[in-house]
């Protein structure tokens, strides 16, 4: 028996060769398809690739026409790369590492139009997540506006504390009124009091009658006095309740009366009126623009944050450990490398500002392995409307706990034209032309962004267009800025990305006229006065109504007090009558006793006289 089957070996070679040939033949379209689907999933909008080419010596991948859709504008490409080339270490691929020794991105453009929508239809659940994310919001800078809000609009939309307190007080008064009326009705029970009156009249009559009647009257007076004292106690308790209620009522009245001032404070804080300070006109003018820039930075940060964050942990979590697939156990690597590592990358971008060229080094998925921070340098070439524009960045996450991103940006002599500084209708201001030099330095560490921006404006011309009826104010604005041709701005920002604090200072504050500052302050004071008047006017009628109801309560109390007075008089009379009758009775008894003694004495005397006769 022959142990070897040579035909089998040939079959094996044919099968393996066919498999390899098939893989080589289809590897490019397969790679294209995989890249498109993976990148689209990551971007949450379509990523289209025109062509993928693979070379094997040295191993490299070339990608032509990468178009990344802006998820928020599906008809716009957020990034459009003409050609991308990656020189990859093939040996490291066996270790599941993508090590790119050299990468080049040429013809990068942004915001290019798309021929078809790049929107991906998402499942309902992910749409909900997106909505929640949007609800979380970005921005977060509270800034005052020169355009003060309309007082009537505020009062229409705002729920005043005064209204709430008045409503509560009204309910309290109504409940108290019901309670007091019940007490009063009980105290003034007609049947009971008629009975007392009848008894009282009878007692009065009996006291003037015979001795027996007088004795009965004393007994009845005792009983009536006892009943009336019980009534008095009831009234006393009612008065205590009234006093407690009145004390609380008066307190709540005081709170309700003071509430308009609390409302004014709250509204001022809500509309940032406290920050509307004419001493810092720069904050008013540039605050809105700066806030827009910060918002833009937040949007971009939100886009790139997932790539900046260390993804090793994420990879660990993604590892399958289900049945039938097993778990990949990791061992120490002698020459550890990040899962994704781009040693050098050259960038060539075309923007509306001009061409930009730059380099990116040490782009790594885990900097703690390659121990080098990622660095980015970008500089403008053949720029439009500016002499120089540069950006340098360092993304250092070698030590994961102290990782930071630092970006420095500078632009020299940018020709600013027709730049609307204030969009306010009442404070129109446009930089007609100026040469702006800007230096920005930002640092993001542990979710906190800090930085400063220094801007110098030279050869500046301001214009102020009258867009509303207050032409005197427009003229004043124009006059105040007419002589200012050079000024600088120093902005500092800090805080968590969703809640930034922004401080803007400028020598502009010293240069603008005092008249303008006074006018702005006057506007603020006028607004506060109007608000106060309107609120007081709004609560005047309900407060008057409440006052009237309070008076009714006082009247109830007065009625009960009067009843108490009346009863006191009756009890005093009964007690007095009872006392005087008892005294008369006592005296009569004593007189009768003396008379009996005298009579007996006389009898004894007469008997004695008879004996001695």
């Amino acid at each position, binding site marked *: *028996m*022959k*142990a*070897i*089957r040579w035909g*089998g*070996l040939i*079959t*094996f070679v044919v*099968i*393996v060769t066919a498999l390899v040939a098939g893989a080589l033949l289809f590897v490019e379209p397969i790679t294209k398809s995989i890249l498109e689907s993976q990148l689209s999933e990551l971007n949450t909008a379509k990523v289209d690739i025109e062509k993928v080419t693979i070379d094997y010596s040295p191993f490299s991948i070339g990608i032509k026409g990468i178009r990344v859709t802006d998820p928020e504008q599906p008809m716009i490409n957020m990034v459009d790369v003409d050609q991308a080339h990656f020189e990859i270490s093939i*040996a490291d691929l*066996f*270790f*599941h590492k993508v090590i790119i020794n050299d990468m080049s991105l040429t013809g990068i453009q942004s915001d290019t139009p798309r021929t078809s929508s790049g929107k991906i239809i998402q499942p309902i659940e992910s749409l909900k997540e997106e909505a929640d994310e949007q609800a979380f919001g970005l921005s977060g800078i509270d800034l005052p506006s020169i355009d003060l809000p309309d007082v009537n609009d505020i009062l229409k939309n705002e729920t005043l504390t005064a209204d709430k307190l008045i409503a509560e007080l009204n309910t309290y008064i109504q409940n108290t009124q019901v309670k007091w009326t019940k007490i009063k009705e009980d105290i003034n029970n007609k049947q009971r009091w008629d009975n007392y009156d009848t008894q009282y009249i009878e007692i009065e009559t009996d006291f003037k009658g015979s001795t027996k009647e007088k004795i009965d009257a004393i007994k009845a007076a005792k009983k009536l006095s006892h009943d009336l004292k019980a009534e008095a106690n009831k009234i006393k308790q009612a008065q205590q309740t009234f006093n407690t209620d009145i004390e609380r009522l008066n307190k709540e009245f005081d709170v309700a009366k003071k509430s308009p001032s609390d409302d004014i404070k709250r509204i001022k804080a809500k509309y940032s009126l406290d920050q509307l300070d004419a001493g810092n006109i720069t904050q008013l003018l540039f605050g809105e623009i700066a806030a827009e820039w910060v918002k833009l930075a937040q949007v971009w940060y939100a886009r790139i944050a997932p790539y900046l964050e260390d993804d090793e942990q994420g990879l660990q979590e993604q590892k399958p450990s289900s*049945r*039938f*697939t*097993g*778990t*990949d*156990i*990791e*061992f*120490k*690597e*002698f*020459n550890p490398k990040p899962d994704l590592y781009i040693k050098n990358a050259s960038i060539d971008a075309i923007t509306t500002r001009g061409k930009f060229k730059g380099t990116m080094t040490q782009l790594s998925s885990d900097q703690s392995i390659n121990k080098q921070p990622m660095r980015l340098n970008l500089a403008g070439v053949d720029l439009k409307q500016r002499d120089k524009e540069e950006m340098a960045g360092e993304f250092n996450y070698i030590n994961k706990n102290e990782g930071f991103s630092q970006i420095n940006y500078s632009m020299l002599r940018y020709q600013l034209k027709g730049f609307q500084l204030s969009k306010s209708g009442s404070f129109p201001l446009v930089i007609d032309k100026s040469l702006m030099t800007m230096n920005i330095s930002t640092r993001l560490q542990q979710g906190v962004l800090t930085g400063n921006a220094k801007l110098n404006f030279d050869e500046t011309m301001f214009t102020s267009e009258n867009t509303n009826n207050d032409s005197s104010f427009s003229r004043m604005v124009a006059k105040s800025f007419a002589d200012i041709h050079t000024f600088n701005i120093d902005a500092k920002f800090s805080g968590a990305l969703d809640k930034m604090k922004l401080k803007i200072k400028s020598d502009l504050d010293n240069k603008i006229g005092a008249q303008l500052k006074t006018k702005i302050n006057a506007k603020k004071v006028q607004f506060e006065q109007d608000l106060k008047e309107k609120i007081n006017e709004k609560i005047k009628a309900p407060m008057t109504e409440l006052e009237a109801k309070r008076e009714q309560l006082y009247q109830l109390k007065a009625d009960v007090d009067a009843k108490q007075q009346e009863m006191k008089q009756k009890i005093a009379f009964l007690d007095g009558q009872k006392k005087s009758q008892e005294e008369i009775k006592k005296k009569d008894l004593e007189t009768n006793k003396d008379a009996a003694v005298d009579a007996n004495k006389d009898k004894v005397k007469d008997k004695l006289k008879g004996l001695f006769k």
Partner: protein
Amino acid sequence: MFTQILKLIRILSSETAPIQISAGFALAMIIGFTPLLSGHNLIVLLMVLFFRVNLAAFLFGWAVFSGAAYLLDPVFQNLGQTILTQPDLSNVWTHMYNSSAWRLTRFNNTLVMGSLLVSLIAFIPMLLLGNFLINHYRNDVLKYVNNSRLFKVIKNSKLFSKFISLAE
């Protein structure tokens, strides 16, 4: 499946050397127990084609052992986990982990390690056991069946001829 069983009976009853059939089963055990897309399976395929291994036995065995693997996977995974996390062996695994050739075999996967280890250990016993059982079947069982009256009656029936034609 029925056809496969008939084919198996035919192979067992044929003139094919028992070692060829049992080698087919033993190699099928490796490819059936371990994940298909593993480097060592290419070697198994080469061995099946290069050596005179019975292909029908191999294909039948592959189907049987793949089914059994569904039940045994948790055992393989636990075994692989235990082996790969043995402190005494960590040096060996670390050195292998740093070699691109070894990484291609996916040895660090718990399922690959566990199932491959079981199938390699069971390979020789399976080969010998298979050989012994086939010999015993041919010498004792098959002879007894062939000489029995009942089988002679069945053998002459039309139904039996149809069954035989199915296996061909």
